[in-house]
Structure formats: C-alpha cells, structure tokens
C-alpha cells in the first residue's frame, strides 16, 4: 500500500447500513489510497460491519439503528479521537471515486480551506435518472435559499473536513437531513470552503438506496422540527 505522508493523518469515514453486497468493493478501493478508514455500521443485520473489518477498516458499530447522520457523527468523533487532521466522508454504496477523495484532500491543503465539497453537477455524472436530477436541483435551490451558500450540489456524501471544521460542526440530525445541516453550519460559521467536481456513478444498487421524493419530505420535516427548538 502506497500512502503519501500527507494522507497519514487523513481518515475516511464510511457510514453503512445493510450494505453487505457492496461494502467489500468500496473499502477495497478506498484502502488502495487511504491508510485510515473507519466504517460505522449503523446496526446492520447483514454482516456489513464484519465484512468491512475483515477488509481492513476500523469498525464502530451502533447498538441500535440511528440513521446516516448519527453514523457520520460517530465516525467523525472516532477519527478525531485518533488524531485525524483531515476527515473524508464517503458513501458506502460505491458511488464515489476514490481518486476524487484524494484530490479533495489535496485541495483542502493547497487552497487553505476548512471544507471541500464534492459536486456531481460540476463533474461527471453517470446514469443519473431525470427524476433524481430534478429532486437534487430542488435540494440545491432550497440550500441556496436557506443558507445563502453558492453551492451546486446539496446532498453529496463526499466531503473533506479539516480537523478544526470537524470539531466545530455538530451533526444533530440523525437521519438524512444532516447534509443540509452541515451546509447550514458552514454558512453560519463562515467556514471557508470550495466545491470540487466529482464523479458519481449511479448503479441500480445506488439508485435503489438513494433518496426519493418521500425522503425529501422527511428531510424538510426534520429540518423544520429542528428549527422549532434550537
């Protein structure tokens, strides 16, 4: 395994829930470029966590299912505890390209920002269904409206956070609304960020796991409820 010095203190956090079909391929490709990978198994029932551990990642396992946001927060806490200087968030379903993640870690350093966001709309998107494109467009519109951030993608699982940013961002949305929540906090704290094109490969598998219109309604409801008692 060839890991450049600057990636030694970089941690990749992969939240996973019932991803046994794909997790092995995902961790294998990530471990080719990153030495430190933690999979947060959100109480899967299909052995996802064990597969990841056998594949060479660290493993945190929630004793109850909490949601992707909670899994990310757990993984980030674990990485910070291990002295991570940069933290990559990465989806388990294999939709991201590991080279994009490496490039984004480089950007974090070279552009001296606290957050690097992947954007599928600046990059290539393979096999994105039209309904999903419309839905993501609506999410981007909502994010621009509510945070004022000029982003081109809102619900992309690929991000890089500096240690300082990871310490300050508090993910309290346990389910899927954390993506908007992270952007809201970036806006509130005025954390310097850049967006970087990234490739997302939609497979039948990732399409079936992704967000639907119903999911979007749940996300909006979660965000609204949070507003009620902040």
């Amino acid at each position, binding site marked *: 395994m060839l890991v450049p010095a600057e990636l030694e203190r970089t941690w990749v956090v992969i939240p996973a829930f019932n991803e046994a079909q794909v997790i092995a391929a995902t961790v294998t490709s990530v471990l080719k470029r990153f030495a430190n990978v933690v999979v947060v198994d959100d109480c899967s029932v299909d052995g996802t966590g064990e597969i990841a551990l056998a594949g*060479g*990642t660290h493993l945190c396992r929630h004793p109850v299912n*909490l949601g992707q946001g909670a899994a990310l927060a757990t993984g980030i806490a674990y990485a910070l505890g291990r002295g991570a200087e940069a933290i990559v968030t990465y989806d388990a379903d294999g939709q991201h390209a590991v080279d994009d993640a490496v490039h984004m870690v480089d950007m974090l350093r070279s552009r001296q920002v606290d957050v690097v966001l992947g954007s599928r709309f600046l990059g290539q998107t393979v096999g994105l269904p039209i309904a999903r494109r419309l839905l993501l467009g609506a999410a981007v519109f909502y994010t621009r409206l509510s945070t004022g951030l000029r982003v081109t993608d809102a619900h992309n699982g690929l991000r890089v956070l500096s240690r300082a940013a990871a310490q300050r961002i508090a993910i309290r949305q346990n389910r899927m609304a954390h993506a908007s929540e992270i952007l809201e906090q970036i806006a509130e704290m005025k954390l310097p960020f850049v967006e970087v094109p990234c490739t997302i490969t939609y497979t039948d598998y990732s399409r079936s796991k992704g967000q639907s219109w119903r999911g979007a309604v749940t996300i909006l409801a979660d965000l609204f409820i949070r507003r009620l008692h902040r």
Partner: protein
Amino acid sequence: MIFQAILVVALSVLVLYALGQRRRSGPISLVIILASVAGMLLVLFPEMSTIVANRLGIGRGADLVFYVFMLIMFAAVANLHVRMRIHSEATTALARQIALSSARQPDTRS
C-alpha cells in the same frame, strides 16, 4: 345521573393520580388537577359552561369546552414531542459512546 357519576369518579381518580405525580412533574400535575376539578364542576353544573362561554364571547358552553380541549391536547402533544426529542438525543449519545468504546481495529498482522 349515571353518566355524571361515572365522570365524577373518573375525574377524581385523575386528581388522585396527579397528586401522586406531583413531585415528579409539578406543573403538569397542577394543570391536570385544575382541569379535572373544572371538569367536575362542569359535569355537576353544566349551565356554568354557557355562562363562562358567553362572557368570553363564545355562543355555547359545549364549544368552549371543545376549544379548551383542543388547546390542552396541543400543549400535551408539544410536551410529548419535546420529551421524545430529549430521549432520542440521549439514546444517540449512549449508542455513540458504546460504538466508540467497543470500536475494533483491523488485524494488522496480514
């Protein structure tokens, strides 16, 4: 008179229950006691509700009771919601702590 008797007994039980819960959640048990006593008065003197309703600009006593019921229900739902949220945050913190303290590392011998 049978139904009035049932209601008075039920509301009395509620008052006793609320008195028992006083130490655990003071304000809520006070609200339950006040509402139950008011309920008993209305059961025994139904015309009272119409008098109060007219004072407040509502036509019928039954309407007043209905509106107050709605308000109490809304407050109860809001209260339960906040409690659920607190519980879910506690569960999250607990689950996270367990996940972090039982984290496993990859086998580095290979």
